[in-house]
């Protein structure tokens, strides 16, 4: 049941060298730099996103995910969900407006898989980048690199998948769209708050709080191949692809940023309506679920995390 969580809104990624990270996310991935704040964080967005930023880079001594945030439909919903999260037993912290420039107050909460999430209702709206709000052209002509259109989702690793599933479905109104089952044991879960086949996903792992990848959207398989070309031209460390996943059926390529955080760019993927039944892949078909063409698992894809 929908609880007013609208969509993924922002991610704060830890990087070890800001200049290298900006070159990667802006010039190679093709996000648009929109802001730098007094603490040195760099704010970026995909060109189709209407709010001012969706990706925040923070320089520190280790990579990984600081937090992943969802935008909710109103300030009243933000208050309701904050109360529900507290009642559910989450550690809830209210972060005042302006801690991220151009963003309203945020409700930060922890999860059983050891990740920090946020909800917020307000962010400065600047419109799609490079096209007008009235009579817009199809796309801006001065985009760089892979020209990703938007921040799409994250895949996170942690232990208590059942706990995080319950939190996201019963408190936040997400639905379970796809899962990987080893008998009765769920090893992966893909959750949605929209018509996309996932807005956030989790894989079971001994260590909590880990980031597997941050994903950005492209329009077509042709653009995924073009991204692969850019990965070669720029000598970016490739993880896997271009290929198709069995899970979600997206067309994907994975690579690493200069701090070891994995990125995905992808196109396609199934849609989700709330009257659909959960799609299940069985653990004995995990190779095909991840690499639909080669059908063979690669250890690095499962074990390399930040």
């Amino acid at each position, binding site marked *: 049941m929908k609880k007013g969580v609208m969509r993924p809104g922002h991610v704060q990624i830890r990087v*070890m060298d800001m200049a290298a990270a900006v070159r990667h996310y802006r010039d190679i991935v093709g996000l648009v730099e929109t802001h730098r704040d007094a603490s040195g964080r760099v704010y970026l967005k995909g060109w189709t996103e209407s709010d001012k930023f969706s990706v925040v880079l923070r320089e520190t001594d280790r990579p*990984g995910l600081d937090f992943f945030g969802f935008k909710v439909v109103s300030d009243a919903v933000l208050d309701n969900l904050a109360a529900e999260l507290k009642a559910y037993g989450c550690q809830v912290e209210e972060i005042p407006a302006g801690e991220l420039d151009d963003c309203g107050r945020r409700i930060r909460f922890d999860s059983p898989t050891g990740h920090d999430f946020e909800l917020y209702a307000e962010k400065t709206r600047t419109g799609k980048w490079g096209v007008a709000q009235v009579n817009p052209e199809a796309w801006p002509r001065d985009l760089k690199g892979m020209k990703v259109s938007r921040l799409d989702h994250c895949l996170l690793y942690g232990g208590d998948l059942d706990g995080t599933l319950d939190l996201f479905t019963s408190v936040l109104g997400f639905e379970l769209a796809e899962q990987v089952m080893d008998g009765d044991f769920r090893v992966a879960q893909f959750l949605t708050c929209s018509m996309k086949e996932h807005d956030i996903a989790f894989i079971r792992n001994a260590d909590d709080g880990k980031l597997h990848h941050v994903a950005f959207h492209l329009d077509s398989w042709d653009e995924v191949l073009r991204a692969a070309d850019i990965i070669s031209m720029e000598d970016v460390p490739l993880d896997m692809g271009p290929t198709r996943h069995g899970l979600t059926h997206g067309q994907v390529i994975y690579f690493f940023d200069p*701090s*070891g*955080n994995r990125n995905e760019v992808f196109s396609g993927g199934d849609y989700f309506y709330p009257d659909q039944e959960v799609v299940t892949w069985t653990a004995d078909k995990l190779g095909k679920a991840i690499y639909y063409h080669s059908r063979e698992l690669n250890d690095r894809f499962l074990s390399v995390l*930040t």
Partner: protein
Amino acid sequence: MAFWICGSLAHIEHLVTDLVSKQSFSCHDGESLLSAAVRSGHPIIRVGCRTGGCGLCKVRILGGDYQTGKMSRSHVSEAEELQGYVLACRTLPAGALEFHSRTD
């Protein structure tokens, strides 16, 4: 260290040795220890992100000169760094080097 002179280009190579597998191989000057290990064909160091973040390529240097780039503090603490622990993808040998490919 060895020099090959071709035209005006001097190619500097460093001999690196893994004391666990007893394999020695050559590393170009400016090349990472991990890249040289992969090129040697000996699967003695695990390959992950190749950018100092995941910790899979962690080894311990036991002798020789080298430089390191940014390495995740989640995988190499300051104390470990002083004891020669490094991420091979972020380690540039600057002369003959001996290392231990297992850190567990």
